[in-house]
């Protein structure tokens, strides 16, 4: 078995972190705000990737998990004046518990049907938040005036980036252990995995819990960054679309890919803004996503890996390749 983290990987991660940490010296606060959003989107996309990209159980209802995390901490801190140090961990635990709602159907159904159940979960919670105890959830209008954690673009940028980096490293290392390999195998052939004497139920439960925990962390901190929450913005098919597309465009099942994808999609949308001020942006944005997905379902990660391989073979340098190349699969 290859080493989980080679010196080259360490160097790449450090270089990435260094560039990102120096960024506030160079770019404007407006751009930082965009990157903060990209950081949170990357967290959501990686959470999606760990569940759906890895195990092949495609979730169309990830905002269900994110929403549980966000709403729990928002309600606890805003309605019950609980300090954030307590409300966020409780929110994450609640989200993990919510992840088992995703897990139950996954015991029996997969593929298309699983995707639909998760979509139904999202619609269900969307309608429930408006009806059940609107005095707590704020109903259709949601909650605004939630305590924010930090003030200003620069501190928020550093915080969201470090949060994202921490999650990325943990998930990336997890994905490269034998456990991660087993999860990949579930996506390919679940019967074969259980035939090899591994408990697919336990493996799936693990993936779902990790994914839910990440979604909960992301959701909870996101609401304390925004300071407000509303059901329509959260439990929305457009939000699902953004998460899934980021993960797929980046490269499903690679963890690094969804991170790249989140940055790519966010900046695509932002750079289209001056060119196309109106809603045409979303048309172009969607078309780019569709064409990229149909052209290379393995995403940007695979495109980069292919390019790198092309350069390598040109240099006739067949040194040991430490990266997982081209084995990222479409979800």
């Amino acid at each position, binding site marked *: 078995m290859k080493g989980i983290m080679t010196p080259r990987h360490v160097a790449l991660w450090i270089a990435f972190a260094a560039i990102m940490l120096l960024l506030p010296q160079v770019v404007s606060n407006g751009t930082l705000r965009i990157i903060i959003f990209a950081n949170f989107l990357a967290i959501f996309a990686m959470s999606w990737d760990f569940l759906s990209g890895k195990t092949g159980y495609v979730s169309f209802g990830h905002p269900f998990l994110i929403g549980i995390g966000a709403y729990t901490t928002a309600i606890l801190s805003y309605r019950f004046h609980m300090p954030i140090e307590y409300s966020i961990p409780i929110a994450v635990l609640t989200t993990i518990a919510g992840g088992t709602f995703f897990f139950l159907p996954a015991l029996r159904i997969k593929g298309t049907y699983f995707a*639909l159940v998760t979509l139904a979960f999202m619609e269900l919670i969307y*309608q429930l938040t408006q009806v059940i105890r609107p005095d707590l959830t704020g109903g259709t209008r949601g909650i605004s005036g939630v305590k924010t954690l930090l003030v200003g673009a620069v501190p928020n940028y550093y915080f969201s980036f470090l949060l994202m980096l921490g999650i990325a490293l943990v998930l990336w290392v997890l994905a490269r252990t034998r456990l991660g390999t087993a999860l990949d195998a579930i996506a390919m052939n679940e019967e074969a995995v259980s035939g090899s004497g591994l408990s697919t139920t336990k493996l799936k439960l693990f993936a779902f819990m990790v994914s839910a925990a990440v979604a909960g962390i992301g959701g909870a901190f996101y609401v304390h960054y925004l300071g407000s929450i509303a059901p329509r913005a959260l439990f929305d098919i457009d939000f699902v679309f953004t998460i899934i597309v980021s993960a797929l465009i980046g490269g499903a099942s690679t963890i690094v890919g969804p991170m790249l994808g989140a940055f790519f999609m966010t900046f695509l949308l932002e750079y289209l803004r001056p060119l196309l001020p109106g*809603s*045409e942006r*979303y048309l172009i944005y969607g*078309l780019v996503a569709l064409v990229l997905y149909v052209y290379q379902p393995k995403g940007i990660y695979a495109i980069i890996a292919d390019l790198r391989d092309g350069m390598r073979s040109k240099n006739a340098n067949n040194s040991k390749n430490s990266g997982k190349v081209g084995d990222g699969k479409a979800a």
Partner: protein
Amino acid sequence: MTQILIQGFLLSGLYALIAVGFTLIFSVGRVLNLAYGAYIMMGGYAYFYAVHIWHLPKTLGFLSAVVVGAIAGILMYRLLVKRLEGDQVAVEISTLILAVIIQAGIVLLFNDSSKILLPIVNGVWHVGSTTITKNMVMAMIASWIILGGLLAFVKFTHLGRAIQAVSMDPKGALISGIRTDRINLTTWAISGALGAVAGVFFATHTQLNPSMWVSPLIIAVAVVIVGGIGSIIGSLIVAHIIGFMEIITSTLIGAELRGIFTMLLIIIVLVVRPQGLFGRGDL
């Protein structure tokens, strides 16, 4: 009580109409077309454009909806679904992306404000204390005629039986000399047209706006999943279960809760009985 019965039948008729095109694709192509809601939206907007902006007669409005829906279906199959060669999850994801693209296109063409579509038939009837719009009755009658026609088409015509054959066993159909590709194309066109017609009625029932595609899509998904995949009769029955459940909850409990039981039904049926209430029928 009569109110529940009448409104239940009317709403269920509309739901059956919405679901049937979706069922057709699922049974023949074995793929979930998440852009199906977009047909519904495009049908509604095509009718709006023809009748309210160009002031064409209503028949031509319907005709334009049918044409737009059928073309959308054909393009979707040719350009996207065929390329992905039966990879179910890839089709789902790419049709979801497509639906969002179409939504953006609609915003671009018609801007994102809601538009009211005037009823196709004006007037109301009073039955006891209940008021029934003639428009909903028309939608129900149209739905029954279309469903009956479709059932007859599938059972008794050559093309319909070929569609049935492909839905049962594509390879077997191919060996028997059926051009499965052409059958698939036809089915996508029919599904698009059915969706678009349903869209006109749905739009008069609610209103036109660029995000109107989500709720009919969920209804179609619920009907297909709960009914058992690809059974037209099963879909019809489940459309009535869902329609009546919505009416009963909104009259007896509260209008806000009407959608919740549909979601619960999807979740429970999928978890407890993934093959659907009426099994995996063939058309």
